[in-house]
C-alpha cells in the first residue's frame, strides 16, 4: 500500500472543511472556466494581482495575528519575511506583466525567407499549488501570483499544519480574487492524495523530499509536469574575518538567517557553519554576546511548530555526544514549545543532527583546518538549496561558485536572496527542480509556444521528392548558408 502523505505522522489538524470535497467536479469546473478564456484575459490577470495587493494591505493586522497563532512569529519577522516581500513582489509582477506576456521575436534563418518566428507565452491551464507551513502566507501567495500572472486557473492547498493561516486564506481569497477561477482546498494528507489522483497542467510542491517523491510519482500517471521546492542542509562557510566591524556584521547576519527566520525552520535558513578551527572561538563568543542582545526581549524568535517537531529537535540534543558539544543554549521548554538558540561545536558528523535537515534553532559549528577544506565537505553532501559564505577572499569565492552546486550562492549575507526578484529561486538535485520568483514565477506556469509563419511566395523545389543527387547538392549549400552558391544554383534549377 502506498505510503500516505502524512508529514511525520502528525494527527490531522482539526477539520476546517465543512463539506465533502469532490475534486473531480471542482477540477472540471475550473477547466470550464479556464477554457472560457476568462483567466487568459490581460485585464483579468491585472485585476487579480491588484486584488492580492488589496488583500495584503487591508488585512495586515489579521495576517500578523494568524502568523503569530501558527508560529509565534513577531510581526517584524512576519512583515520582513512574508507580508512585505509579497507586496513588493506582486507589485513588481503587475508592473512587468505586459512585457512578460508579450510575444518575443526570434530569428528566422534567411533561407526560410520570407518568414517570421516568435515565442508566445500562454498559460498552462489549471494548476495546483501545495504550500508549506513555515512561511504559510509567502509560500502560498508568491506562486499563486505567478500562476495568476500567467493566466491560469488555480487550486491552492495550504498546509494544514498552519491552520490559522490556511483558514485565513480559505476565507479571504474568495473575497479578493475571482472565486470561480481560484479555489482554496483545506485538509490534510488525504486531501493532498485525492488531489493528486487527478490530472493538472502543473503542480508546484513545497515541502519535504519524502512527500516530493510521492507527488512526482502520482503526477507521472497523468504526465503532469511538476516543480519541487524541497529542503536541504544549507551550509554557511565563515572565513577568517579581520576587523571588529566586519565580524559583527557577519554575526548579525548569521543570527538573522538562523534564529530570526522562523527559529531556523526555513528551507534557506543556515543549517550549520563551517569555520577554521582558529577562528571558531572568536565566532562563538561574538555569537553569544550578539544573541543576548537580539533575544533580550521575549518574542524575538518564533516557536517550534508543534510537539512532533519539538520532540524531533529535542531528540537531537539527547544524543550524549551531541549534548556534550553544546557551547551555548540547550534549554528546552515543552510547555511553550520553545528551544533556546543552541550552538554546538563539532558534534559527531554521523549524528542525526548532522545528517538530517535540522529545521530548528540548533546550529552545529564544524571546524576545519583550512577554510578551503570546507569545499570538499560541501562536495560530499547532497546539493542544498543555498550555500552561504562570509569571506573577502576572491579566490575562495570563485572556487565555491565553480566547484560546488546549489540552488543559489550568497556571499556575506544569508536568506536575503529570497527577496530578489531578478534571480531565480529553486533547488537542484535533492533540493528540487523548477524555479520561481519574479519573472520565473510567470514562466513556471507558462508554456512558451514556438510560432513560425511563412508565406506562399517563394518555393524551393529541392524540398520535394522525387529525390535526386542534384537536389542534395543544392541542399548542401542551403544548410551551410552559402547563399551565393545557392542563388547561382537556383538560377539553374528554377522551372
Amino acid at each position, binding site marked *: 500500500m502506498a505510503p500516505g502523505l502524512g508529514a511525520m505522522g502528525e494527527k490531522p489538524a482539526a477539520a476546517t472543511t465543512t463539506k465533502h470535497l469532490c475534486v473531480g467536479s471542482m477540477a472540471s469546473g475550473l477547466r470550464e472556466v479556464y477554457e472560457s*478564456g476568462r483567466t487568459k484575459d490581460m485585464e483579468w490577470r491585472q485585476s487579480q494581482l491588484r486584488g492580492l495587493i488589496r488583500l495584503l494591505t487591508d488585512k495586515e493586522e489579521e495576517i500578523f495575528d494568524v502568523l503569530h497563532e501558527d508560529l509565534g512569529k513577531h*510581526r*517584524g519577522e512576519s*512583515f520582513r519575511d512574508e507580508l*512585505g516581500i509579497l*507586496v513588493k513582489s506582486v507589485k513588481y509582477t503587475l508592473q512587468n506583466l505586459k512585457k512578460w506576456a508579450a510575444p518575443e521575436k*526570434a*530569428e*528566422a534563418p534567411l533561407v*526560410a525567407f520570407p518568414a517570421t518566428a516568435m*515565442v*508566445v507565452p*500562454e498559460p*498552462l491551464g489549471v494548476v495546483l499549488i501545495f504550500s508549506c507551513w513555515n512561511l504559510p502566507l509567502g509560500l502560498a501567495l508568491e506562486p499563486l501570483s505567478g500562476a495568476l500572472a500567467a493566466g491560469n486557473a488555480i487550486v491552492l492547498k495550504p498546509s494544514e499544519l498552519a491552520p490559522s493561516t490556511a483558514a485565513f486564506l480559505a476565507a479571504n481569497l474568495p473575497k479578493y480574487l475571482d472565486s470561480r477561477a481560484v479555489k482554496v482546498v483545506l485538509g490534510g494528507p488525504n486531501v493532498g492524495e485525492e488531489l493528486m489522483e487527478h490530472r493538472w497542467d502543473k503542480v508546484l510542491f513545497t515541502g519535504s*523530499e519524502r512527500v516530493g*517523491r510521492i507527488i*512526482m510519482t502520482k503526477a*507521472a500517471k497523468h*504526465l503532469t509536469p511538476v516543480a*519541487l521546492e*524541497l529542503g536541504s542542509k544549507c551550509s554557511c562557510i565563515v572565513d577568517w574575518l579581520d576587523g571588529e566591524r*566586519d565580524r559583527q556584521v557577519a554575526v*548579525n547576519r548569521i543570527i538573522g538567517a538562523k534564529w*530570526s527566520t522562523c527559529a531556523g525552520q526555513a528551507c534557506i535558513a543556515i543549517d550549520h557553519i563551517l569555520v577554521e578551527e582558529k577562528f571558531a572561538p572568536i565566532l562563538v563568543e561574538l555569537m553569544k554576546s550578539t544573541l543576548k*542582545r*537580539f*533575544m*533580550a*526581549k521575549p518574542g*524575538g524568535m518564533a516557536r517550534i511548530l508543534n510537539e512532533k517537531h519539538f520532540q524531533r529537535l529535542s531528540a537531537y540534543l539527547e544524543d550524549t555526544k551531541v549534548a556534550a558539544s553544546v557551547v551555548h543554549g540547550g534549554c528546552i521548554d515543552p510547555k511553550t514549545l520553545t528551544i533556546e538558540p543552541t550552538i554546538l561545536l563539532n558534534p559527531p558528523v554521523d549524528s542525526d543532527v548532522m545528517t538530517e535537515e535540522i529545521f530548528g534553532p540548533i546550529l552545529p559549528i564544524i571546524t576545519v583546518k583550512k577554510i578551503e577544506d570546507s569545499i570538499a565537505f560541501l*562536495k560530499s553532501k547532497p546539493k542544498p538549496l543555498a550555500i552561504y559564505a562570509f569571506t573577502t577572499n576572491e579566490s575562495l569565492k570563485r572556487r565555491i*561558485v565553480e566547484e560546488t*552546486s546549489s*540552488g*543559489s550562492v550568497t*556571499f*556575506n*549575507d544569508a536568506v*536575503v*536572496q529570497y527577496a*530578489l526578484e*531578478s*534571480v*531565480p*529561486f529553486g533547488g*537542484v*538535485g535533492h533540493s528540487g527542480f*523548477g524555479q520561481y520568483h519574479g519573472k520565473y514565477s510567470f514562466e513556471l506556469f507558462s*508554456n*512558451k*509556444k514556438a*510560432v*513560425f509563419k*511563412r508565406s506562399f511566395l517563394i518555393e524551393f523545389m529541392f*524540398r*520535394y521528392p*522525387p*529525390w535526386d543527387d542534384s537536389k*542534395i547538392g543544392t*541542399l548542401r549549400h542551403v544548410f551551410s548558408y552559402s547563399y551565393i552558391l545557392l542563388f547561382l544554383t537556383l538560377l539553374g534549377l528554377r522551372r
Partner: protein
Amino acid sequence: MAGVVGELRASFKAGRTRPAEWRAAQLRGLIRMIEEREEDISDALHADLAKPRMESYLHEISLAKTNCTFALKGLKNWMKPDKVPAGVATFPSTAQIVSEPLGCVLVISAWNYPFLLSIDPVIGAIAAGNAVVLKPSEIAPATSALFAKLLPVYVDNSCIKVVEGGVPETTELLDQKWDKIFYTGNGNIGRIVMAAAAKHLTPVALELGGKCPAIVDSDVDLHVAVKRLAVGKWGCNNGQTCIAPDYVVTTKSFAPELVDSLKRVLERFYGQDPLQSEDLSRIVNSNHFYRLTNLIDDKKVSQKIVHGGQRDEEQLKIAPTVLVDVPLDTALMTGEIFGPFLPIVTVDKIEDSIEFVNARSKPLAAYLFTKNKKLQAEFVSNVPAGGLLVNDVVLHVANPHLPFGGVGESGTGSYHGKFSFECFSHKKAVLIRGFGGEAAARYPPYTPEKQSILRGLIDGSFFALILALLGFPREKR
C-alpha cells in the same frame, strides 16, 4: 550498469566535462564523425527504415551537423554568467545567474529519427558540461550499433557512453540515479520514465507525440500548400514523425478540391505505384505494420479511403493513403497514427476547425494554411501546442532560435539551439554582498521604528535605504 554510471560520475566529479575546451572538442568530434561517416550513417538509416538517402541527408545528417555547429559557435556566450540587477532591499550588492551542468544525464532516443534524436539532446548535454549516457532505440538496431561503434572513436569515452539494449537494459538504466533524464518517445513509456525518475527526484524532459492537426483554408495557394503538407507527411519517414500532420481539417466545400490536389501531388512525388518508389520510407517493423493495417482495415474506416490503401507485407511498405470523414470514435481518429494515413475531417465553416482542434489533447505541433490574418491571429492566441506553423509544416524543427517541445500530453521541457544548453543546465543565482550597508532594522528586537524603516526598505524607498544605511534606528546599548 551501476559501474557505467559510477565511472561517469567519477569523470564528472573530476571536472573533466567543465572546461569550454573539452566541450568544444567533443562537439568538433561529433561534426567530424558526421562528415567522415556520412555514408555509414545513411546506410544504417536505410537498413533501419529504408529511408531515402535524401531524407537521411535532409532531416538527420545535415540537421545534426548544423546543430553541432550552432552549439559550437554559441558555447562561450551561453557559458557566460548573466549579470542581473540587485534591488534596493539588498543594496549594496551584485547579482548574477551562473549556468552549471546538472551532472550525469541519461538520453533515451527514439527509432524514427534514430540519428538526429540521439545527437540533438547529446549536443545539449555536452555543451552544458555534463557527462552523458545515450541509450539509442533498439527498434533501429543498425543506427544503435553504429553509435556504439563510432562514438567512442570520435568523443571522450570516459564521459560520453552508449548503452545499447531493449526493455531490460533501459529498466536497469532507469533504476540508477541521474541528474536529468531526456526521453523521446510515446506517452506510455514517458509515464514509466517519469515514475522511475521520481524515485531519485530526477527532473525529466519528455518529448512525446500526439495528433498534430493541419487546418487548411480555401483561400490558399493550393498547389504550394498541398506540396508542403504532403512532404511534411509522407516525405518525413512516411508519416512516422512526431510532428507530421496527423490529420487535416477543412471545410466540406473545399475538401474535394483538396483531395484532388493531394492525389496529383502524391503521384508527382511517388509515381503511379508508390510501393515501388525509392523515395518512400518503409514502416519500421512488422509490429507497427500490423498496427497500421489494422487501423484502416476496420470496416468503418476502409470505406472512407479516397486514395491509396495498398500495402506490401514483405517490404513492410504502405502507400500514402487519404481518407475523408472517418468516424471520430475509431482507433485511427483517437490515437496518434504515426504512419502514412491522412484523414480529412470536414467542418461547415473554417472557424469551427479551431474548436475541433482544441477539444483534443495539446499536440506537439499544429498547422494552419490560410491567408486570412484574422484566422491566423486566432490560431496563434487560442490554440495551445508545443509549436505552431502557419502556411508550412515541420520546418520549425530546423530553427535553432525556437524552443522545440510539447505541452500537456505532448510532453514537457524544450530544446534545440540555446534551449538545449539550458535544458541540461542549472541556473544558479549568485548574490554578492559586502560588509557595508548594514541595516539594524533587520534584526530583533523588532521595535516600531525598525519596522517602519523595514517597510520602507522593502517598498524600495530610497529614503528608507538612506536612513537604514546611516544606522537608524540607533541601537540602545
